[in-house]
């Protein structure tokens, strides 16, 4: 009998692995969008599922009308920004809780996306030239080799996600960007320092949804079709990716690495997905799996706390001497900790 590990390995092949990595980079741009709202602004924006499909739908329709590919990408981003604008206004001007505002927009977007796709649930873009085919052609020209469509898609994903990481890294390091981070951290404080937090949130939600729509448009290039339900579960994929990324890069505090870690998490997520599918599960099962991943990650702090309480119980059941020793140790640690952080601790009072 093969061990479970070997069993899993046997289901991984280079082709599906690379395919998963490519998907990871393309969806990774969406994850960066989710990162802006969820992690930086501390706003749970659920517009994602809708605006992802909007980006894809707008791209499909505009490219079918014969427009320049890059222009189509920009239009898709613009449409995504508009989705974000609606959620942002609902949240900041009408004071609707962010979660509800996002759900409302997402719900409405389903109808709008169907309209954009001329009432069809699925629109194929066929063999139309896209950024991905352009990359294939370029590589063919320079290296004289033909690479599969999905590989070129991966290259597009790498270029765009790296560009987005750099852009966000530099933006958030500026004076303006710092006020975005501070808004997510302590709204009252940064308002008292003269920042209009409503405008900042609006800007953040718009930017986030622009990236999400861009990701959707790239996925249409990759899949060669747009689907009205293509964004379903995107928010959970995004959160799962962020969570996975955090597990791998917990120790890093550099902001650029944190951004990159969420794209990395997305790649890992899609590798898990491809393994799960190769194991014989349906792609739709991924929704459940990603929900479980997110739940575990969010429940972790409580779980750890409970473990700690159990440990106290164990400590108390030790014999008296050990108990007092353990207590002394804890006390010493607590005092040391306090001296480090407390005002006037040590000699400087």
């Amino acid at each position: 009998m093969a061990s479970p590990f070997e069993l899993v390995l046997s289901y991984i092949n280079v082709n599906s692995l690379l395919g998963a990595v490519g998907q990871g980079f393309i969806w990774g741009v969406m994850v960066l969008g989710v990162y802006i709202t969820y992690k930086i602004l501390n706003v749970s924006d659920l517009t994602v599922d809708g605006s992802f499909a909007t980006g894809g739908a707008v791209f499909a329709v505009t490219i079918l009308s014969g427009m320049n590919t890059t222009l189509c990408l920009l239009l898709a981003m613009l449409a995504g920004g508009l989705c974000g604008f609606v959620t942002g206004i609902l949240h900041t001007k009408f004071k609707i809780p962010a979660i509800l505002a996002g759900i409302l927009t997402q719900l409405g977007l389903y109808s709008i996306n169907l309209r954009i796709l001329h009432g069809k649930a699925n629109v194929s873009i066929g063999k139309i030239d896209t950024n991905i085919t352009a990359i294939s052609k370029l590589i063919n020209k320079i290296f004289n080799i033909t690479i599969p469509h999905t590989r070129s898609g991966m290259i597009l994903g790498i270029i765009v996600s790296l560009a987005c990481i750099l852009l966000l890294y530099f933006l958030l390091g500026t004076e303006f960007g710092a006020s975005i981070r501070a808004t997510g951290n302590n709204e009252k404080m940064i308002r008292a320092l003269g920042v209009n937090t409503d405008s900042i949130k609006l800007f953040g939600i718009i930017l986030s949804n622009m990236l999400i729509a861009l990701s959707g448009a790239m996925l249409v290039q990759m899949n060669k079709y747009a689907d009205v339900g293509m964004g379903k579960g995107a928010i959970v994929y995004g959160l799962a990716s962020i969570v996975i990324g955090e597990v791998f890069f917990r120790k890093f505090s550099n902001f650029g690495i944190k951004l990159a870690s969420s794209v990395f998490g997305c790649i890992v997520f899609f590798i898990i997905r491809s393994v799960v599918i190769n194991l014989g599960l349906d792609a739709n099962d991924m929704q459940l799996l990603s929900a479980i991943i997110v739940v575990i990650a969010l429940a972790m702090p409580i779980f750890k706390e409970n473990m700690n309480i159990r440990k106290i119980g164990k400590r108390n059941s030790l014999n008296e001497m050990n108990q007092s020793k353990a207590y002394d140790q804890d006390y010493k640690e607590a005092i040391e900790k306090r001296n480090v952080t407390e005002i006037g601790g040590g000699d400087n009072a």
Partner: protein
Amino acid sequence: MLKLKNIYKTFNVGTINEKRALDNINLVLNDGDFVTVIGGNGAGKSTLQNVISGTIIPDYGTIEINNVDITKYPEHKRAKYIGRVFQDPMLGTASDMWISENLALAMKRGEKRSAFRWMIDNKNNKFFTDQLTKLGLGLETRMKTKVKLLSGGQRQALTLLMSTLKKPDLLMLDEHTAALDPKTASLVLNLTNEIIESSKITTLMITHNMRDALAYGNRLVMMDQGKIIFDVSGKEKKNLTVEDLLKKFNQTKDAPSDAMILG
């Protein structure tokens, strides 16, 4: 100069809980005034503070700072003139950001924040270090420490520094030592006094503590039922004792709280 003219504010109008929180408040703070505001619970101190900072818009009246009418300005627009320190030490700083980042944010209070200029630029580093050294808490060596690792007192001292880093036209202290232990509170209060005296900052300090209200500032204002019932300054204020204040309080309907007597 801060000028409040005929300020009225009533909450829950037309209900059984209707409460006139501010009742024709007229108050002028001259440049360099350090005013302590004292009063019982529900006297209107907090509402007064909120009306000046812009979290509450008054029903009637005007607020002017340096002859600019700011009555209708939202909170963030008033930041150009006003520096604030809150009662809750967690509210004044961004906990997940470094000390230096917090200072850099405060440096730009009320100014436009450019998307094309780095927030941390080493030009200010020496200035920040010098200012932190003045606090005497050893924070100058911990510029890249996240603020959440500091104690309440350290955070409050940092907030104080941040609110005065760029000299404000008005400094508002909203019971800013109420959440600290007595030793730390007096340390922060002494720092407050030093900073205000050395930069001649016009200050409005709301406090629950009579002794602090007497010990600091050149002017004392007592509020009750939304009105200013007592306003002394200069020599008269210097000669004032806790007993005098208690007498004043006993003339009002609200008996003073324990905290005021014991403090």
